[in-house]
């Protein structure tokens, strides 16, 4: 078991690098699906395309997947609930509302939309948190879950109103696309905007990965094992949400990665977050990258990324849950 875990991690690392390198040559230029690597030496346009468009986009896709997979694993443990996903505390719906509001009222410039989305993502979290503090029902975890559901519903009804009010020819398609998630138009500026938030956050979560196990125990037990339960939970939650809000603000709502990838990781290497968290991050990164490759390559017009992540995520999940890998641990 131990050896196979290390091999899997090394394998995923190699696979991730390979996927990143191959993805550079996948696309619809100069012809659909594949660009011969030699073209980079000959063609100035190819160089421009790869370094200014494809590279930042690939890196963003990988970071997006790592963040959603990792933050999903962290949040599921923090909330002691395997059905939680990283945006559920009002973060995803808040970001969607912020983006829709910006598209309608201000401008559809990417930076404006992303900034508004990030602001509302945090607003969503703050609402959820404040509401949970004032609920008079259940324990802390249950109150946060309930508050998250309520605030998400509030923002999604807000999105509904904005869509209703939007110009159906100009603004509505833009909002719809944003809500389905996608990485078109990503530039180095976006990478420079999310990397300083996402990379330290992921690194900290990775460092604290064994400690995470303790926070999945009941409060009494965690306390008796020396955990400052409230403080440590708040720290890890803030870090995960900050990273999630950052990536969601440039990508839109990309569903299912944060929910499913942690499950797959746990099925592969066991519950212990010492092993499951790195696997969830790498798996998420590879998964998002491959889905994004398909989204931008398969058809002439780009398909929103969220559609592919849901499609393949659900299929992969069902397949793995029925397979021998899942049964071998029982």
């Amino acid at each position, binding site marked *: *078991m131990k050896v196979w875990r290390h091999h899997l991690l090394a394998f995923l690392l190699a696979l991730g690098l390979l996927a990143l390198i191959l993805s550079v040559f996948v696309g619809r230029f100069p012809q659909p699906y594949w660009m011969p690597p030699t073209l980079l030496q000959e063609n100035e346009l190819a160089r421009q395309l790869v370094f200014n468009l494809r590279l930042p986009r690939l890196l963003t896709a990988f970071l997006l997947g790592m963040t959603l997979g990792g933050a999903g694993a962290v949040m599921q*443990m923090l909330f*002691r*609930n*395997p059905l939680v996903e990283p945006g559920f505390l009002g973060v995803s719906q808040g970001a969607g509302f912020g983006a829709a509001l910006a598209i309608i009222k201000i401008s559809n410039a990417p930076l404006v939309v992303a900034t508004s989305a990030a602001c509302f993502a945090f607003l969503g979290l703050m609402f959820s948190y404040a509401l949970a503090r004032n609920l008079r029902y259940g324990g802390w975890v249950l109150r946060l879950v309930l508050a998250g559901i309520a605030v998400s519903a509030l923002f999604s009804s807000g999105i509904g109103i904005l869509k209703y009010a939007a110009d159906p020819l100009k603004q509505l398609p833009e909002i719809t696309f944003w809500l389905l998630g996608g990485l078109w138009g990503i530039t180095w500026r976006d990478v420079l905007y999310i990397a300083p938030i996402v990379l330290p956050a992921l690194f900290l979560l990775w*460092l*604290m990965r*064994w*400690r995470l*196990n*303790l926070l*999945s*125990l*009941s*409060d*009494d*037990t965690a*306390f*008796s*094992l*020396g*955990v*400052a339960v409230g403080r*440590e939970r708040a720290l890890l939650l803030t870090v995960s949400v900050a990273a999630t809000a950052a990536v969601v603000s440039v990508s839109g709502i990309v569903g299912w990665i944060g929910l499913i990838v942690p499950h797959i990781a*746990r099925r592969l290497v*066991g*519950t*212990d977050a*010492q092993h499951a968290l790195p696997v969830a991050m790498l798996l998420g990164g590879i998964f998002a990258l491959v889905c994004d490759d398909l989204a931008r390559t398969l058809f002439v017009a780009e398909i929103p990324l969220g559609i592919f992540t849901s499609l393949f995520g659900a299929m992969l999940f069902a397949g793995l849950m029925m397979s021998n890998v899942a049964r071998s*641990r*029982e």
Partner: protein
Amino acid sequence: MKSPILSLTDLCFGYEPHAQVLRGVSLDILPGTITAILGPNGAGKTTLLRLILGLLKPQHGTIYLEGRPQKTFSRREMSRLMGLVPQSEYIPFDFSVLEFVLLGRAPYLGPLDMPREQDRAIALEALRAIGLEHLRDRATPSLSGGERQLAMMARALAQQPRLLLLDEPTSHLDLSNRDRVLNVLRAQAREGVTVIFTTHDPNLAATIADYVILMRRGALLAAGTLETTLTAENLSATYGIPVRVTRVDGQLFVVA
């Protein structure tokens, strides 16, 4: 006379401001002894345990651990001093039994540390002591209630505390496992670990305890050595029904 590892002075506590669950509890516990906290359901036994653990803050009175006020202990110091075996625990993820027991090493690891080889050895030793070694790779949710209770016990042993708190430690155990747990507790006490457990079963106290604390409605009715405290008179007052105490093979036996 050794100095007490745990002293409570005039402890008062209530979950609501005017409904006190504990009223003026004072007692001293000596190191290396086994103490049973005995009383009917709702007497405040678990609340007392949670106060000692530091999960609840007393409204009045002070808790001293090894002569120092509880407030002055850091979280890490406290977790090295005291371990808890809860009555039951909901485990949402399928940790293997060994991974679960390894979590007991947390007090000796920094926030960024991974368990080391020596921690694994200690966890395995704890599993061996509790007789659960053959289940080390099983997923915890697939364990029976009794096996899970043993796993929680093994985790507390891996924690190597000087004061071991147990809440109804044998509630899910069959006869042979109960016997095994009692032997482990005796062995711990011989090595100098102080054991405090709650129970509503007077015969469990009679089997293993050196000292008995009788509680009813948040107050101490009686406290002292097993022989002097576990009397028909005291037990009748504790449970509110007539109770007889006899001897079977030299050991006290309580019949209601």
